[in-house]
């Protein structure tokens, strides 16, 4: 099982593909998402989003605010701007 991930900003689709783990920081604290996570909708604060792809790569992005939504192994992360870390 893997997660179908999309990290999008208003200007472009920053990252999309399959991943096995995602970590992000919401208002309530750090959050990790593994496959088969319950449907969730969270508000992100400025911080780092880490995506571990199925191919073993790990990518980190600096996001400034945004949202994360998880449902049916589909994760979308919306953010206003990203910076590659």
């Amino acid at each position, binding site marked *: 099982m893997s997660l179908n991930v*999309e990290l*999008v*900003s*208003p*200007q*472009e*689709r920053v990252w999309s593909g399959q991943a096995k783990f995602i970590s992000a920081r*919401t*208002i*309530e604290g750090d*959050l990790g998402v593994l496959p088969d996570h*319950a*449907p*969730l*909708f*969270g*508000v992100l604060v400025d911080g780092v989003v880490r995506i571990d792809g199925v191919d073993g790569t790990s990518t980190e992005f600096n996001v400034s*605010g945004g*949202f994360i*939504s998880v*449902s*049916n192994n589909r994760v*979308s992360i*919306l953010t*206003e*701007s990203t910076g590659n870390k």
Partner: protein
Amino acid sequence: MGAQLRVYRRRMRSVKATKKITKAMELISASRIVKAQQRVAASTPYANELTRAVSAVATYSSTNHPLTTASENPKRAAILIISADRGMAGAYSNNAIKEGEQLAALIRSRGLEVASYLVGRKAVNYYRFRNRAISGSWSGFSDTPTYEDAKSVADALIQAFLADAQTDKAGVDEIHIVFTEFKSMLTQNALAKRMLPLEVVESDAPVPSGLLPMYEFEPNAEVVLNALLPRYIEARVFNAMLQSAASEHAARRRAMKSATDNADELIKSLTRLANAARQAEITQEISEIVGGADALSSANAGSE
């Protein structure tokens, strides 16, 4: 060279110079449409995800957010008109402004006041010339709008919306947007849409298949909605600006193409006229020479 001929040649030179300019503008716009279209396409995933999120939250929460509830007795409505900074785009700006006028008339007939928010120098000039009140105006980015531009416009609108329209003169109860929808290279339509209060799930994004999942909200639905709705408005404004930019380039390309075609026609008919004038001059000279020779030879014949 005769005076007539010289006038024709001068006009031809000037038309040719104009044609060069319009041709260049046509080519520039043609290349910019593609870029503008790509930017619209690049912003679509974000807009779609956001729409999905807003409809999910709005469906599964009973929160009565000020941004989603309509005022019981609305007093004032804001209209955001998106037009061009530069002309030479045919009726592009005018169509948007006219659509805005119609919408304003409709709103006034409902007994509301209208507050105008304008994007693009053309709309601003139109309103200034007629001495109308402008609640807010932005210009200088109509052909390549950035998200920051959209954000500053959206922020002003949301602030006006959150202010109480009954007591505050700057407050509004409704926000409408007028922009030019980019359907294809050939078709662009000026459109008026209501942005606030939200009509959730009125976007043209594909309806998510199946039921939306029961989300857990972190921290809770109200906070999520509070954070989500301003972003949604920004994204809508941004999308409208990008579509308008693409439409502007398409309209300019079409206007410049017909200008170039007209210049061609004009050059053709002027060439005909110039040729006729030159021929008339030659004919006249010949008949003068023949006449002169005739007169000379008859005078000579008389003296002998």
